[in-house]
């Protein structure tokens, strides 16, 4: 195979784009893990469910794109908060393995209900923005993807501002650091944990809609994207939000570059090999100081 730098550059650009959605998923993982100590295997399914909700809102409701996105975000956040309230709140003192199995159970429920409701065929979103590629030197840019990436970036920035600049965000960070301490200064940790599930699901939902716009939606997108989000979170440094963000972009680039160098068929194998290698050699993540306190 001949090496083509232009092609590689394209893969890198594409990788950054996909990486942004991985970053959002990674942030979702990190947030829920930090506040409730739950490794949530259902995040990928949250993303998928949000994408399907958005799809249905677009086709059934007279709301336009922004309205549909809002409907699906509120829907997925409400679903996650309800789930946390009903099924997970009582479990945090139990064996973490049990909680993990619980989230796998949730992902199984969501995935198969979606399969029953929307059917097994993948569907593509209607086009809202131009999709004809524009050439910038050797690099190929699709305008729709630029919009999608900007939305993702704006969501990340808003999230970061919310966590650092608002009282509620600060309370959630405090809960993540030390539940007992947070309770002592008058924070309601249950509310914060519940909100973090909602907010986390919303981030995942944004990622899901982004993925749905750039590729299309299918029942299987949850498992793969969930795992990619996980990998990014670990790659960056679990529970550390900015690092998880960087991890997502790195994974996106590595994955797409490797698809160019090896073969497209083994793209997922590369992602999973990355998990194993990172856990073996740098378990604290690429961008987080090891042994540091958990911060979000």
């Amino acid at each position, binding site marked *: 195979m001949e090496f083509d730098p232009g092609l590689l550059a394209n893969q890198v650009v594409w990788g950054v784009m996909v990486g942004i959605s991985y970053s959002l998923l990674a942030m979702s993982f990190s947030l829920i893990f930090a506040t409730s100590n739950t490794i949530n295997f259902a995040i990928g399914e949250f993303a998928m469910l949000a994408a399907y909700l958005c799809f249905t809102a677009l086709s059934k409701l007279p709301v336009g794109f922004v309205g549909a996105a809002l409907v699906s975000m509120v829907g997925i956040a409400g679903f996650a908060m309800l789930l946390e309230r009903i099924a997970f709140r009582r479990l945090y003192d139990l064996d973490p393995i049990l909680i993990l199995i619980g989230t796998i*159970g949730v992902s199984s*429920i969501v995935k198969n209900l979606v399969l029953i409701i929307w059917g097994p065929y993948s569907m593509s979103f209607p086009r809202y923005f131009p999709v004809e590629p524009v050439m910038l030197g050797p690099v190929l840019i699709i305008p729709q993807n630029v919009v999608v990436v900007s939305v993702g970036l704006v969501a990340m920035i808003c999230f970061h501002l919310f966590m650092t600049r608002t009282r509620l965000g600060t309370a959630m960070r405090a809960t993540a650091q030390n539940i007992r301490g947070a309770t002592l200064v008058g924070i309601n940790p249950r509310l914060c944990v519940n909100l973090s599930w909602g907010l986390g699901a919303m981030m995942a939902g944004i990622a899901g809609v982004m993925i749905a716009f750039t590729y299309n939606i299918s029942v299987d997108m949850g498992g793969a994207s969930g795992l990619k989000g996980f990998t990014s979170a670990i790659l960056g440094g679990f529970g550390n939000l900015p690092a998880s963000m960087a991890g997502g972009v790195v994974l996106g680039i590595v994955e797409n570059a490797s698809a160019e160098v090896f073969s497209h068929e083994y793209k997922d194998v590369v992602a999973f090999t990355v998990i194993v290698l990172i856990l073996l050699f740098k378990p604290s993540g690429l961008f987080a100081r090891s042994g540091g306190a958990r911060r979000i």
Partner: protein
Amino acid sequence: MSGSSEVRAGPGPRARMLLHVGLIAALLLVPVLFHEHLFLLRLFVQMFLGATVLMGFLVILGFSKQFSLAQVAIYGIGAYIAANLTATLGVSFVPAMLISGLVAGLVGALIAIPGARFVGPWLALVTFAFAEIVRILMARLKPLTGGAVGFRNIPRPEIFGYRFTGEADYYYLFLAMALLAYFVTLRFRNSPQGRIALAIGDNPDIAASLGVNVFRHRIFAFFIGSMLAGFAGAAFAAYATYISPESFGLAHTIHYLTMLVVGGLESIPGALLAVIFFTFSHNQLMALHPWDLILDGFIILLFMNVMPRGLGGLASDLWHRRSGKRPEIKAEAAS
């Protein structure tokens, strides 16, 4: 160590012995009495297969608290190794099964190495990733696995010149395997190794501070559990004579996890009860396909919330109430 993590419940050693002998005798008689009910024998074979895989899972996940999601993948590796050995290389069944079990055990020990260094959830990721890689490779490595369409024409077993023909032959093979798995698990549970594994599961730091080599014990538990899965895979390949990646997907992992939660993560009798119940119910629910996985999910959530120690925990509570002994309360970790 932080006290025995499970209350010793149930009948005394003599009654246990009688119970074991009685059950085994009854199981040995089943094909004699019901040799015309092929459907029933098939159900029993599935039950023994499930029990073998689940016992291995129990050792890894329940006793030593290593969250593996690779049990089904390792079971699949065992099946493909045995298929290659018997169909392609012409090895006879017994050595093929032994080799499959050993290799599966070693693979398990190998993936335990990165996980054993870290706490719980990370291992779930490593093993999940590993299971995905295995699944992708099963569908892609055509010369070894037959690709997505599967591996066909796996020869039926022949043990010391005796050719397997009917369902009853397989019944005894799978019964023997399930009993082996059961006694290995029981022995492991009650051996110093197993008690150390449980202590590590309760609190690895305390165990380590008492001089236990946590790393080595975790890997040993993984080896035992994976070896049982490998045996089960080899037997399954010889039974089905056809295997495909379908049989080793995430859906099966979810079935086994459901059984573990329902049985209670640390209870051997609980796990066996769960296997019996779910083999029968899944057989009925298979026609409703995606609904069985949805049901699994709800059962997991229900048991977690209502009965987190599962049927095993319930049985032990009932026993203590009946015999008037108060169970020793498990020490809560202060966190």
